């Protein structure tokens, strides 16, 4: 069996943590979900993660904070940001910092699929 690439989901919202991994598994990825940026950093799957789906607004360390932290650590993981707030300045900034895509919740399966394809093209 071919090893499925690991996609990590970091979102403080439980319904996203429940629903998104299921869909990603259906799409052929293996998934790990984390409720905070800190929990992801402390986990053992930083090196394994091929793509990070990251919420922007979270209590504690935010999505962009994590993006910065990973850049500092030299961890080059493609990031797909997801957000429930249509804040263009934040989206623009994270894209400038190298994010693959910034998806507005609720996003369609197609949009997610395209973003994932783009992320895996990067690697």
């Amino acid at each position, binding site marked *: 069996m071919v090893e499925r690439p690991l996609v990590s989901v970091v979102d403080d919202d439980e319904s*996203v943590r429940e*629903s998104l991994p*299921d869909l990603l598994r*259906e799409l052929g990825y293996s998934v790990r979900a984390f409720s905070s940026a800190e929990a992801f950093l402390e986990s053992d799957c930083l090196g394994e993660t091929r793509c990070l789906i990251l919420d922007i*607004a979270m209590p504690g360390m935010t999505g962009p904070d994590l993006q910065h932290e990973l850049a500092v650590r030299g961890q080059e993981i493609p990031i797909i940001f997801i957000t*429930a*707030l*249509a804040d263009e300045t934040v989206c623009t900034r994270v894209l400038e910092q190298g994010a693959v895509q910034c998806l507005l919740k609720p996003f369609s*399966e197609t949009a997610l699929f395209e973003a994932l394809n783009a992320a895996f093209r990067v690697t």
Partner: protein
Amino acid sequence: MIRKARAAWRGNSGAAHAGRFTLDRQLRATTSVMPDIAEIGAKVGALIRQERPLPVVLSSLCQFFDATLEGCFSSVLLLECAGARVRNAIGCGLPAGYMKQLEGRAVKWIETPFGARTNKTPAIVLEPLSNTLQKSQEVAPGATPCLKLHELSPILSLTGEPLGIFAVYRRDPSAEVAHFYSALIPRFTHVAAAAIERLRSDETLRRSSALLQRTQRLSSTCCFSWQVETDEISCSKELCELFELGAAEVPATLEPIGARIHPEDLPSFHEMIERARRGMNDFEFECRLHVPANSSKYLRVVAQQTARQQGQLEYIVVVQDVTQRRRTEEALAKLRAELARTARVTSLGVLTAAIAHEVNQPLAGIVTNASTCRRMLAIDPPDLEGARETARRTIRDAERASEVVKRLRALFYKKGAVSELLDLNEAAREVLALSRSELERNKVIVRTDLGGELPPVLGDRVQLQQVILNLFLNASDAMSGVDDRPRQLVIRTERDEADRVRLSVRDTGVGFEPQEVDRLFDEFYTTKSDGMGIGLSVSRSIVECHKGRLWATPNDGPGATFSFSIPCGRSAAAVRSLGAFRTSVAGAVDHHVGSRRQ
């Protein structure tokens, strides 16, 4: 010193000489004959008509007297208002230095019949003035005989007020006076009194007219009187300036003024004229002028009905140019509106973001779960258990979204309603005052037709005002694209047959199609590009909680009329609790959310 005094003496008589008349010589020639006092009066009258100053007129009068009576020298001492002091001494036959001395002297009026010329005329004491004038002291000693004060006669107004003193001096007191002397004195004082009164009233008139003119200029005001029957007006030239009519066309009737009124304000202007013709009491209104040179000019017109004699109706109309004020107000209102809009947009933006975040989270779950569910069902064999689980989560997330909406609603309708007896006219006027600038910015002409003796209604003032405001703003919005007719908003209140108070707002806007009428009051139904479709549905809920009714009717002409009626205060005891409003509105929104979910 002496030379100086002599020069003054000569100068004085020289000046007097310059003012002499041919009549003077004629009079001098006939000193023993009683002069024609009527002719003197006519001459003095002519001087007055020529608008010669009072000292000149009185000086001429003294000259006539002196010419009539050989050896007599007269002067008129003009008194200050109260008659207690000499203000001005006039006389051409007496030395100027002496006359100067008299000015400012106190005058004592002694009420004694013995000292008086007549029973009614008080005697006069001029203090502390020597009654002898030593002319020799001033001119050349011994060369000329002295002048002695012979008589002081009061010059009284028609009402008996002291105006001045007619003083007669004689060169030789022992010499006999002409037989008509006694008869002449009262006639001269009479002419002097008439001259003083006339010239003083002329002066008062001139001053008050100058004051009026200056006041009008200062306050950019003018006034005119309007004879309603004949349509004649009499006005000052300031009116021409204000209406920019050009000095040549001083209007005699209202017509040229009407021609200057801005076309959009003409209907209101004509209506005001009609109401005035029907004898409506005082009125005031504002209108714009359509003036050739610049843009519009704003005028405020205040009219007061004056005496109505023999059916003659007359108004005194004051017109004030309030353009500057209106421009400032407009600028201020624009600024305020911009600020309000910014605040609205800002708070709406903040609110929208909050709502978006709260709703988008569960929506994301819903979309993702549904996508997963579809995929699970599409595989062969279908993952029914997985699909069931994702469907369960979809429902859960949808319920969560609905919870968010409920929380928001609780936030909006937190304030309980307060029920009180209130005057709907007053409530409407308050709203009008608040929204006037917004309406004016939208070029809406507001006409109010608020019923008199409107019974109070029982209700929540703020909620009802919210309804009225909503109707105003809807009317204003409905007319925002109208340019081929006046944007007129008529607010009317009246008591109807069913002991209810009705308020209607009529506009000349785009109106609505008959088939739309049922949907107008639905939530989220809107014809505006930027509207939310909340206003009318909430308004109807409020009115219904007041046991009332809100409805819309298309006008015969362009536009629509929105009306509501609620029971009068007495019959409104039925309105138990306006707190019910919360439940009712909540129900309406619940229903809506429910229907969307299906």
